[in-house]
C-alpha cells in the first residue's frame, strides 16, 4: 500500500520521524565525504594541516603556560599533558562552531530538498572526527619522544571520546537550532568558547585549583573528560565521580539539544 501524507499547519510538540531518518540515511555519508574532501583543497601542505594545527597550538601553549608562566603537570611532561587537553577540546570547539552554522550555511539544500534537517549538524560532528583521529595519531609520537609508557588503560580513551562526541552533538544541536532563528548566537558563541577554555582544565591540572573553586569546574562536562584522558595515559585512577557528573550533564545536553532543534525545525524554512 502506498503511503498517505497529510500536510497541515499542525506542529506536534515532539516529532522525531525515525522512519524518515532511516530512509534518508545515505545523505549523511555524502555530506561528510564532501566536507572532508573539500577542507584542505588548494592548500600547499594539504592534509598536513590536520596535524600542524594542534601541534603548533601545543608548542605555543607549552612555551607560554609552562615555560613563561610556570604551570606544572605532575606525572606527565607538559607537552603531552597539554596535548591531551587540547585533543578533546579542539574537537569540541571546532565541531560545535561548524554545527552551529550548518543550517544557515546550507540554505540552498534546506529550501529545495526533503531530508531530515538533523543530518546537517550531525554530518559536521562526524566529519570533524577525521581531524580528531589524525591529531590523535600525533599523541603516540609525542609519547614516544617523551618516553611515556603505554598501558592497557589507554583504551579508556574510547568511551571518553564517545562522551566528547555526545557533548559536542548536544551542544551543537542546541546552537544550530538557535542560530537559525537568532543570529545573535553566532556572535556570542566564539567568545563563549574561548572563555570556556579557561574554566576547563586544558592548560592546568585540576589539582592546582583551590578546593573552594573546584565546584565551579564540576559544572563543566569537560572537566571529567579531560582529567579522564590524562588518567588513561598516566595510569592513575580514573576520576569516576567527575565522569559520572560528565555523563549526566551529557545526557541532559543531548536531550535538550535534540528537543530545541526539533522544536525550532519547522521554522527554519521560513526564517533562515
Amino acid at each position, binding site marked *: 500500500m502506498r503511503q498517505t501524507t497529510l500536510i497541515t*499547519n499542525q506542529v506536534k510538540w515532539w516529532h522525531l520521524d525515525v522512519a524518515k531518518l532511516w530512509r534518508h540515511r545515505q*545523505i549523511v555519508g*555524502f555530506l561528510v565525504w564532501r566536507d572532508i574532501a573539500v577542507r584542505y*583543497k588548494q592548500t600547499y601542505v594539504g592534509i598536513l594541516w590536520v596535524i600542524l594545527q594542534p601541534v603548533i597550538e601545543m608548542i605555543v601553549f607549552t612555551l607560554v603556560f609552562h615555560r613563561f608562566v610556570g604551570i606544572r603537570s605532575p606525572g606527565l611532561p607538559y607537552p603531552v599533558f597539554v596535548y591531551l587537553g587540547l585533543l578533546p577540546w579542539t574537537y569540541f570547539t571546532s565541531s560545535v562552531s561548524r554545527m552551529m552554522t550548518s543550517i544557515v550555511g546550507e540554505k540552498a539544500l534546506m*529550501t529545495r530538498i*526533503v531530508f531530515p534537517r538533523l543530518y546537517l549538524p550531525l554530518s559536521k560532528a562526524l566529519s570533524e572526527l577525521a581531524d580528531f583521529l589524525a591529531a590523535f595519531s600525533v599523541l603516540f609520537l609525542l609519547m614516544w619522544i617523551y618516553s611515556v609508557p603505554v598501558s592497557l588503560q589507554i583504551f579508556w580513551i574510547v568511551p571518553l571520546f564517545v562522551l566528547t562526541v555526545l557533548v559536542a552533538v548536544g551542544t551543537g544541536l542546541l546552537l544550530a537550532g538557535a542560530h537559525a532563528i*537568532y543570529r*545573535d548566537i553566532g556572535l556570542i558563541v566564539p567568545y563563549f568558547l574561548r572563555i570556556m577554555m579557561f574554566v576547563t582544565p586544558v592548560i592546568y591540572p585540576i589539582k592546582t585549583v583551590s578546593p573552594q573553586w573546584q565546584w565551579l569546574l564540576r559544572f563543566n562536562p569537560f572537566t571529567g573528560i579531560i582529567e579522564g584522558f590524562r588518567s588513561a595515559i598516566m595510569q592513575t585512577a580514573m576520576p569516576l565521580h567527575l565522569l559520572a557528573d560528565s555523563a549526566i550533564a551529557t545526557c541532559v545536553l543531548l536531550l535538550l539539544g535534540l528537543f530545541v532543534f526539533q522544536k525550532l525545525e519547522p521554522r527554519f524554512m521560513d526564517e533562515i
Partner: protein
Amino acid sequence: MESVILVEGITKCYRSGEHVIPPHRMLKNEIEHIVRRCCGKHSAVRESHRKFEALKDISFSVQKGECLGILGKNGSGKSTLIRIIAGLTKPSAGSVTVHGETGILAGVGLGMHPELTGRENIYISGGIMGLSKRTIDERMDAIIEFSELEHVLATPIKFYSNGMRARLSFSVSIHLDHPDILLIDEVLAAGDLAFQQKCLERMETLIKGGTTIVLATHSIGYLSHLADNCIYLREGRLAEWGKTNIAIAAYCRDIRIQLPKKEALSPVHL
C-alpha cells in the same frame, strides 16, 4: 479517477515590511516578552508585524497519472505551493493530502562544490538528491555520456564554464530516481534547446509510465505540450483551474501577450 494530491484551502502567510523578522523574534524582545509574561504583564510587541499572503485559499486536486501545470507571474506563489506539497514548509491554514511518494526537482546541481572535480560532484549531487553510491556507480556512464564532459571530469568544476556546469548538473538531475509524484519547479527553462528537447522527451516517457507530474514553469510551450490541466495563480489566488488551453488563455490575457497560433506552440519556440 483517484486523486493523488488533494489541496484544500491552502493559505500561506509571510511577514512583510521593514520588520521581516518581526520585533518579537529578536532575542532582546523575546527575553523582554518572557520577563513581562512572568510578571503577568501583557506584551505589546507581539503581532505588530504586517502579514503578506503568498497563497490565499487554494483548492484543487490532481488525478493519478495527470500532468498539472502551474502558471503565474514571478511572485505569484508557484514555488511556495510546490514546497508545501513537497512537505518542505507548512501551510498557515488548510491541508494537503498526498497518496504516494513525492519527489521534488527544484534546483539542479544541488550540493555541488567548486573545488571538487566533475566526477566527485556527480557523486555529491546525486547522493544529496537521494541516490545511493551503488546507483550512482551504475548510472555513471550514462550521466557522463549525457553531459558530454568526459574530457574534463578530473578537473575541479570551478574551472568549468557556466554552460559546462549547467550540463553537468542537468545530467545528474535527469538520472535521478523518479517517484510516484514528481514536483518540478522551474528547472527546465535553463539549458540550451537540445537539452530542453531531451527534458521534454524524458517527461513524456515518465507520464506514459504513470508518473503524476506537477510542473511550475513560465514556458507555455512546455505546458501546452505536456499538461492535461493547469492552474493559474494570480497574486496568490487561484484565478483559473481547468484545461491547459483555457488556463493559458487566461494567463496570456492578463499579461497582455498575443497567444501564438496552435502550431507555433512547440517548446523550442517559447
